[in-house]
C-alpha cells in the first residue's frame, strides 16, 4: 500500500520546497518559481491520488514516525480530509501562478521570503486537513497564522498595523483553543481525536468542565474564522495584504478553520453532545449566524473598495457555513460542507480577478473600474461568473450549496436563517451589479474616446489563465454537485446523519 505514504509527500513537498527556497534561493532568483511550482505540483498530484484512493477504498490513517496512537501523532485521511487537501492543493497552485506575477510587480526583492512563507502556509493548511491530534492541530494552526501575519505585513500602507491587530486577535483565538485542549486533557488524559471521541461520552458528572472546554474551543476557532461578531480584525487584514497573498489566504484560511470546527464538533465531540444534550445552544448559534449574515452583508454595501467589499462578503459567507452546520440536519450540513468547497472556489475566482484588475488599474477603488468590460473582457467575464456564483445563480456552484442550506433551514424551521440567506443573496446581487454596471459603462470623462473601442489590455497570461480555470471550475463543480454529494459529502457527515 504505497498510497499510505502519498499524503505525507503532499504535506512535505511544500515544506521541503520552502526550506530549499530559503537556502538555495541566495544562489539566484531564477530558481524561485521552479521550486514553488514543482513542490505545489507534487502536492497536487499526491492529493489527487489520495482522493481517488479514499473514494475507492475508504478512509485510512497513518501514524507519524510509527508512534502508535494515542501517544504518537496520527494523520487521518477520511472523505472530508481528502476533499480538503484536494481543495487546498489545487487552489494554492492556481493562486501561486497568479501570485508569481503580482509579486514580481509589487515586492521585487522580497520575492524569496514571500514564497518561503507562502509554501509554509500551504504545508500548514495541508497538515490541518489531515491531523488527527488535537494538540498538533493547535501547532499547525499557529504555523498557518504566523505565516499569514508575515504575508499580511508585506503589504503597503496600513498593512503592518492591520497585521499586528490580527496577531493580537489571532493569539487570543489560539490561546482559547489551547485552553480548551488543556481542559480536555485534564478531563480525559489524551489528545488523540479518536480517543477523545471515545472517552468524552463516558465522562459523567463533569458536564460543566466539558462544556467549558467546548466553549473555549469554539470561541477560539470562531475568532480565527472571523465569525460575527468576532470578525473585526478581518476586513483590514484582508484589504491591506499584498495581492499575491490575498489570492491564497482569502479563499483558504476561513474555510479551513470551518473545517476545523467540523473536526471539533464531530470528530472530538459528537452530534449527540452538541445537538441533543445542549439543545438551546444550537438555536442561539444559528440565530447569531443569521444576524451575522445580515450585518456583514449590510456593511459590505457601504464599501467603496472592491477588496474590502469582498472581505465583508467573506464574513457573511462564514455565517452561512457556521449556521448550516448548526442546523443539525443532514441537508444543512451537506450544504455547509459543499459551501466550504464552493466558497473557496468563488472567493478564489473573485480575488484572482481583483488581483488582475489591480495589476492593470493600480488599485481597486470603484472609480478605477470604469469601462473595464471593454479593456479587460475576459477578466470581467470571469469576474461575472464568480459574482453570479456568490449571488447564487444556477448553474454556478454557489446556487447548489445555497439550495441545500435553504432546504436545511426550512427543515429545521429556522426562518430567521432562511430569511438571512435570501437577504444576503439580494445584497450580493446589488453589490456585484453595482460593480458590473460601473465596469460596463465607459468613464464619464471619456469624451476623447467618443464611445469608440478602447484598446483591449488584459492581465498577463499567468494571472489570466488561473482566473479562467477557476471560473470554469465554478460551473463545472456546480454541474457536478450531484456526484460530489453522493460520493464525497455524504460520507463526510457524522454518523447518524
Amino acid at each position, binding site marked *: 500500500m504505497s498510497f499510505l505514504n502519498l499524503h505525507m509527500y503532499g504535506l512535505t513537498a511544500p515544506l521541503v520546497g520552502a526550506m530549499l527556497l530559503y537556502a538555495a534561493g541566495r544562489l539566484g532568483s531564477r530558481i524561485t518559481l521552479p521550486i514553488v511550482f514543482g513542490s505545489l505540483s507534487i502536492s497536487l498530484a499526491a492529493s489527487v491520488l489520495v482522493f481517488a484512493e479514499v473514494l475507492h477504498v475508504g478512509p485510512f490513517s497513518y501514524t507519524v514516525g510509527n508512534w502508535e496512537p494515542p501517544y504518537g501523532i496520527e494523520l487521518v485521511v477520511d472523505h472530508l480530509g481528502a476533499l480538503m487537501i484536494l481543495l487546498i492543493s489545487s487552489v494554492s497552485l492556481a493562486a501561486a501562478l497568479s501570485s508569481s506575477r503580482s509579486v514580481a510587480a509589487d515586492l521585487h526583492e522580497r520575492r524569496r521570503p514571500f514564497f518561503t512563507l507562502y509554501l509554509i502556509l500551504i504545508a500548514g493548511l495541508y497538515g490541518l486537513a489531515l491531523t488527527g491530534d488535537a494538540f498538533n492541530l493547535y501547532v499547525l494552526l*499557529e504555523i498557518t497564522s504566523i505565516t499569514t*501575519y508575515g504575508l499580511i*505585513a508585506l503589504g503597503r500602507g496600513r498593512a503592518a498595523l492591520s497585521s*499586528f491587530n490580527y*496577531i493580537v486577535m489571532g*493569539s487570543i483565538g*489560539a490561546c482559547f483553543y489551547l*485552553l480548551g485542549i488543556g481542559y480536555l*486533557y485534564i478531563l480525559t488524559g489524551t489528545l488523540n481525536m479518536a480517543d477523545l471521541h471515545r472517552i468524552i461520552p463516558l465522562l459523567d458528572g463533569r458536564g460543566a468542565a466539558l462544556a467549558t472546554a467546548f466553549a473555549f474551543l469554539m470561541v477560539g476557532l470562531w475568532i480565527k474564522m472571523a465569525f460575527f461578531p468576532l470578525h473585526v480584525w478581518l476586513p483590514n487584514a484582508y484589504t491591506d495584504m499584498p495581492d499575491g497573498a490575498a489570492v491564497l489566504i482569502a479563499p483558504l484560511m476561513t474555510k479551513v478553520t470551518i473545517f476545523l470546527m467540523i473536526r471539533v464538533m464531530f470528530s472530538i465531540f459528537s452530534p449527540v453532545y452538541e445537538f441533543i444534550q445542549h439543545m438551546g445552544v444550537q438555536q442561539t448559534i444559528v440565530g447569531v449566524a443569521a444576524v451575522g449574515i445580515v450585518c456583514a452583508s449590510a456593511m459590505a454595501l457601504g464599501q467603496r473598495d472592491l477588496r474590502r467589499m469582498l472581505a465583508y462578503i467573506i464574513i457573511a459567507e462564514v455565517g452561512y457555513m457556521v449556521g448550516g452546520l448548526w442546523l443539525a440536519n443532514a441537508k444543512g450540513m451537506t450544504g455547509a460542507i459543499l459551501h466550504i468547497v464552493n466558497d473557496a472556489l468563488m472567493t478564489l475566482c473573485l480575488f484572482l480577478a481583483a488581483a488582475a484588475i489591480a495589476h492593470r488599474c493600480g488599485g481597486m477603488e470603484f472609480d478605477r473600474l470604469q469601462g473595464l468590460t471593454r479593456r479587460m473582457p475576459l477578466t470581467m467575464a470571469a469576474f461575472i461568473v464568480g459574482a453570479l456564483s456568490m449571488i447564487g445563480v444556477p448553474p454556478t456552484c454557489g446556487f447548489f450549496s445555497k439550495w441545500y442550506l435553504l432546504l436545511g433551514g426550512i427543515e429545521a424551521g429556522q426562518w430567521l436563517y432562511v430569511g438571512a440567506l435570501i437577504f444576503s443573496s439580494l445584497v450580493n446581487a446589488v453589490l456585484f451589479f453595482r460593480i458590473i454596471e460601473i465596469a460596463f459603462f465607459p468613464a464619464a470623462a471619456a469624451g476623447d474616446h467618443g464611445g469608440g473601442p478602447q484598446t483591449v489590455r488584459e492581465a498577463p497570461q499567468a494571472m489570466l489563465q488561473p482566473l479562467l480555470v477557476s471560473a470554469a471550475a465554478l460551473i463545472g463543480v456546480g454541474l457536478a454537485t450531484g456526484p460530489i454529494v453522493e460520493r464525497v459529502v455524504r460520507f463526510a457527515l457524522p454518523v447518524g446523519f
Partner: protein
Amino acid sequence: METLLDEIVAKYNYWIYVVLMMIGFYAMIGKSNLVKKLIGMNIFQTAIILMFISAGVKKGGGIPILDKQAVLERGVEAASIVNPLPHVLMLTAIVVAVSVTGVALAILQRIHGQFGTLEEDEILEKIER
C-alpha cells in the same frame, strides 16, 4: 462560603492563572500602546502554559526518568512521577509563543519605522491624514 473558600485554597494555583490571564487579556484589549498589548499577550500565553504544567504535576512526584532495571522488576508506579506529556507539549507551546512574539516585534519595528510611534491612536491619526 466555607466550601467555596476551601475550593479556592485547594486549587489556588489555578486561580492565580485565571488572574494572570485576566491581566493579560485586559492589556491586550485595553492598552493603546502596541508594546503593552504584546506584553499582555505574553502574560496571557504564560498563564495558559502554567496551567498545563500544573496539570501534570503531582504532589511528591519525581522526575519522569526511569531506571529500566527497576521498571522491569517492579513496574511503573504512576503516582511517583509527574506526567511528562503536558510539559513536553508546553515546550512546543513556548516555541509557538516565542515565534509569535518574534513576528510581532518585527512588525512593531516596521510600524515604528513607518509612523514614528507605537501609540495606536496616534498611528490611526496619521493614517487618517
